[in-house]
């Protein structure tokens, strides 16, 4: 009986010789990522344990990204609490002062901290993003973070795995975001609760690393615990410049057991959006085309990467955005920001009338740099469109690809990018 990728990595991090789905096991954690939650509930909970150490200060990655730089006094105080904790427990990878770095889920992989075969947890539900790098990664709450800080271990329920076999390539104007939204719409926001999604096939290999990250990022919107890609040359090329640490590529056994198999031909995917107020509320672009928007946002851990900025620049080049619409663009990291600067994308964005912000989660959680007012409508490249997510509870968010966001900013209404590319 063979194993899936998730099962193989879980076994490697346990002291067991065999495991099966549904079983509860203890695993050793390779790395834990924490952000502002450290100054939220984590530091208060951890102090209750009355210990003066963390299990391994070298296996903690700490960065501030949600409210950066602090837009309010309360956020500034939260940042102070975070930094105090990181210093008290002597975190090695402490980026609490480097507010220029960017969003955790972009910066951590860029710095080579997510490598094949690793088991990573983080104080953020979109920790699943690192599955694009052939490792197991998932989000946990503040108390679980405290348990890992103290012991380096965590219990897991071995998940059943879904195999998603992808073939073909996207047509012009279609992106990984359209694929993952389509998948969530098909299986629903509860369709993969507790499951590990494994992406297989030539179609997956055809995707860029940026595109894979978008898909792994949003598997949690279908309830999944992991969203993991197979290793290939593209991944190894990416890693060469990022890490000198050894790693072991993990592939599933031929006779691995999958609870469900879904097949997608990427050439059949078309632009879609998630209508308010649920990421599973999917509609084809033709159904929502023409809906007037107040704001367009391009950024976040889901879609703030070079691939996303490049397609937006292609659409915006030489054009002005609609005069009654605001466009906010936030690169996911400083590395991306500077690359976009060198490529001339920033000039295109600014000339078109976009506001370009510093690297932060910002508007995605209604934090700052583009909060929505009452009854405003936003088309956004982010991951959640819950009621009040980006501001006032009467505002509405449509989730879409960077191409749809850019095309919509041009027209002042939701638009099909295939018509402007």
């Amino acid at each position, binding site marked *: 009986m063979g194993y899936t990728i998730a099962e193989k990595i879980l076994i490697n991090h346990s002291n067991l010789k065999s495991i099966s789905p549904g079983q509860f096991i203890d695993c050793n954690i390779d790395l834990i990522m924490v952000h502002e939650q450290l100054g939220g509930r984590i530091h208060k909970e951890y102090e209750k344990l009355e210990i003066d150490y963390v299990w391994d200060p070298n296996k903690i990655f700490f960065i501030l990204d949600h409210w950066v730089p602090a837009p309010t006094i309360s956020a500034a105080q939260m940042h102070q609490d975070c930094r105090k904790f990181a210093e008290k427990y002597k975190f090695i990878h402490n980026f609490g002062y480097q507010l220029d770095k960017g969003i955790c889920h972009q910066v951590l992989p860029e710095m080579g901290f997510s490598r094949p075969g690793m088991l990573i947890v983080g104080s953020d*539900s979109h920790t699943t993003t690192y599955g694009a790098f052939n490792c197991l990664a998932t989000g*946990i*709450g503040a108390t679980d973070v405290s*348990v890992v800080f103290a012991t380096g271990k965590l219990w897991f329920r071995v998940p059943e795995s879904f195999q998603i076999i992808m073939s073909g390539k996207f047509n012009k104007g279609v992106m990984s975001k359209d694929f993952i939204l389509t998948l969530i719409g098909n299986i629903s926001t509860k369709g993969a609760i507790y499951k590990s999604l494994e992406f297989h096939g030539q179609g997956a290999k055809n995707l860029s690393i940026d595109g894979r990250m978008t898909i792994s990022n949003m598997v949690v919107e279908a309830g999944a615990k992991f969203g993991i890609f197979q290793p290939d040359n593209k991944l190894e090329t990416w890693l060469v410049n990022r890490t000198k640490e050894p790693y072991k590529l993990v592939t599933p056994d031929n006779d691995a057991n999958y609870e469900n198999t879904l097949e997608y031909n990427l050439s059949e995917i078309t632009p879609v959006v998630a209508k308010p107020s649920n990421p599973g509320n999917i509609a084809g672009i033709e159904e929502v085309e023409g809906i007037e928007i107040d704001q367009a946002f391009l950024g976040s851990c889901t879609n703030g990467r070079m691939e996303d900025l490049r397609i937006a620049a292609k659409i915006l080049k030489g054009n002005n955005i609609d005069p009654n619409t605001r466009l906010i663009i936030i690169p996911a990291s400083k590395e991306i920001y500077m690359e976009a600067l060198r490529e001339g994308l920033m000039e295109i964005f600014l000339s078109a009338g976009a506001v370009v912000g510093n690297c932060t989660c910002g508007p995605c959680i209604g934090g700052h740099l583009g909060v929505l007012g009452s009854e405003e409508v936003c088309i956004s490249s982010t991951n*959640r469109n819950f009621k009040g997510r980006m501001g006032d*509870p009467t505002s509405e968010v449509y989730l879409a690809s960077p191409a749809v966001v850019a095309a919509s900013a041009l027209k002042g209404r939701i638009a099909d990018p295939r018509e402007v590319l």
Partner: protein
Amino acid sequence: MIEKIDGFAYILGDDINTDDIVPSHTLTMRDVDEMAKCTLEFIDPTFAKNSAQGNIIIAGDNFGTGSSREEAVYVFKVLGIKAIIAKSFARIYFRNLINLGIPGIIVSWNESIFSKGDNLEISLNEGVITNKTKGVKIEFEKLPNFLTKILEEGGILNQLKKTLKG
């Protein structure tokens, strides 16, 4: 052994997400009582004030979907919520519930089984919910032993503290 839980039903629908429970604007608040006042504010602004009359939450599918923010469990603890019964839970939310010592119970239900204000008694040891108002008993699959032990300790950190000292 955990004593029987006695309380009153408060009904919610499917896909109640963590932003519904604690909106993002509350997350930088340092005073948890202030944060707890905003619990479910976009769905029912009176919820926090009346939580004693609805201290067992009955929800539909995918309860707690969304963020890892543990505040979405903690505010319920602050408000004295005794248990959450749902058709299904989001993964991180379920862990957070048990970790903070609030039982999460998975039950398939409809309006003939639970309505707002029903007086319920939950026995975790027997795996039975008694709806005293409607006079019906509902069985559920008991939690694995190691999770029940976490609940008995009042949360995983209480348990861990003992282990670290032992």
